[in-house]
């Protein structure tokens, strides 16, 4: 037990170091090239208020208004999606579950597409509609499950499927009626997911929502172990599983809806990162949730860095996460074949 504790602390420490290094290098990566000395000058000038040379002023602006918020957002989204994924897998006691299972992403996508074809100030409208329909989709799934109210977990999954298909149908209608030269491509690009539109305003919304949610999940991490034993056991151990499930679903839906509304669909993180964390430190949520959070941030920063620097034109980050995620998941399945759970 002592040995595994040490082991787990070492992994946590190494991942933290990796995250800091990756964050620093992400600040320098991309079309706007910033060297390390320039980075130091830019940050120092912000702190001390010292004047900087004209060549650096543009870089400084780009850094403070685009690069820096974008990297922070990558950390927020990676962490949020990964931890929500871990929570969902514990709630549904199913390794194949990702946070989209109750239709959050489908709802968000429909809302965003609707926002893109409606006239008006599209940018904030897209955000608001995406967020609203994401939450609406989850509420519908939970409402249907509540109406049926037997075998809560399997019914939740099935109602999620119902809602998901419904919103996908709505999305198809929107796509069909959109202008194929202008609106349809923007819907498709939006769905692929990208961090290029991130502003400070997004961060001021995303950080408190995700931060508060993750703190709560961390506090309840031992309860997640118990919930994964099933409802009867959880009740015998003095918990109220349905109330817990409700609270946890609501919080993670806020996190996921917020992330899809700002950055589009970024697949795979919620599915593979919890598996990676479990492979590294074991399934106890006390240990695996913090590692999941770190890994999520690292994976997202890496993916976004790659999206910015692989080609001269930016690639949607959703493509990178899916491209890397699928084989990694395959490898994890192979690696964990002896655990008796997969």
């Amino acid at each position, binding site marked *: 037990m002592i040995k595994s504790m040490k082991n787990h602390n070492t992994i946590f420490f190494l991942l933290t170091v990796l995250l800091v290094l990756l964050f620093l290098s992400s600040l320098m990566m991309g079309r706007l090239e910033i060297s390390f000395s320039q980075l130091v000058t830019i940050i120092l000038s912000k702190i001390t208020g010292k004047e900087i040379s004209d060549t650096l002023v543009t870089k400084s602006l780009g850094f403070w208004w685009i690069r820096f918020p974008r990297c922070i957002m990558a950390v927020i989204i990676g962490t949020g999606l990964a931890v929500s994924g871990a929570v969902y897998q514990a709630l549904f*006691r199913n390794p194949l579950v990702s946070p989209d299972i109750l239709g959050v992403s489908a709802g968000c996508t429909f809302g965003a597409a609707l926002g893109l074809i409606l006239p008006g100030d599209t940018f904030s409208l897209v955000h608001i509609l995406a967020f609203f329909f994401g939450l609406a989709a989850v509420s519908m799934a939970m409402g249907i499950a509540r109406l049926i109210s037997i075998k809560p977990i399997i019914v939740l999954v099935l109602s999620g499927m119902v809602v998901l298909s419904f919103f996908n149908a709505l999305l198809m209608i929107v796509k069909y009626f959109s202008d194929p030269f202008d609106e349809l491509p923007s819907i498709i690009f939006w769905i692929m997911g990208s961090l290029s539109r991130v502003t400070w305003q997004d961060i001021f919304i995303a950080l408190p929502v995700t931060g508060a949610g993750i703190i709560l999940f961390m506090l*309840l*991490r031992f309860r997640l172990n118990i919930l*994964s*034993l099933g409802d009867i056991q959880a009740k015998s151990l003095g918990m109220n599983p349905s109330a817990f499930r409700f609270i946890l679903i609501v919080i993670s839906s806020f996190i996921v809806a917020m992330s899809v509304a700002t950055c589009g669909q970024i697949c795979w993180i919620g599915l593979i990162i919890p598996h990676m964390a479990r492979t590294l430190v074991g399934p*106890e949520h006390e240990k695996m949730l913090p590692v999941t959070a770190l890994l999520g941030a690292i994976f997202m920063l890496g993916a976004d860095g790659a999206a910015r620097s692989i080609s001269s034109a930016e690639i949607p980050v959703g493509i990178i996460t899916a491209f890397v995620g699928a084989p990694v998941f395959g490898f994890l399945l192979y690696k964990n074949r*002896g655990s008796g759970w997969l």
Partner: protein
Amino acid sequence: MAVKLECRSLKFKYGQTDILNDISFCVESGSFCAILGRNGSGKTTLLHCLNGVLKPCSGKIYINSLDIASLSQKNIAKKISLVPQEHIEIFPFKVIDVVVMGRAPFIGMTKTPGKLDYKYAMEALQNLNAQNLAKKNFNRISGGERQIALLAMALAQASKIMLLDEPTNHLDFNNQYHLLGRIKNLCKTNKLSVVASMHDPNLAMFFADKVIMIKNNHVIAQGTAREVMTMANISELYDTQTTQIKIDDNKSFFLPEAKALGKN
């Protein structure tokens, strides 16, 4: 002896179907009570009603004369533990990490188990001679070992009443007697009250102080094992003729009639 757990005119329905009707019994402190009945007679439902996992349609459950309807689920869990019949596949937890979950009712909502909780969990495993399981993957051990691990979890819960749903289900011939013997010992030494649903009337005969027979939603007989375990009652309960083989004055062994054994 003091009455520990009392069930008074309990009634339970799934939808329109009656499952349990007018069930009343008492379990004394430190006694082993077996519930016998055919498949689907409502034994599991009864156990789940006793610790508030299911809410009965009417009737009351008392622990130390305290109505459990007035207790929170957490406070019930401090007094009653349950070892379920089905073992679900879960995350690949180590056995010790499963056993320590039995401490949940004593750990604050936002806390994680501490050193002392792990100590209790280890003691529970040692109590069942199963300390060698501690570091094994719960999903990779046999059904019988899981049963023992879950029993250890209930022991770690340190409640004075334990509900066992077919505790010998996954156990081999030797382990059935071994495990029930251990439980029986705990009844004596720790003043633990046990309510166990059982399939084998012979095991009930050997280990139970009290036997409750359930058929067609009703209790058809209850009392000390010696009073209740008669050829007539058992034949009635299982709808088959039985043969009684006397072992000594107190104990008998029951077999279904020759036809059921395949002889002509």
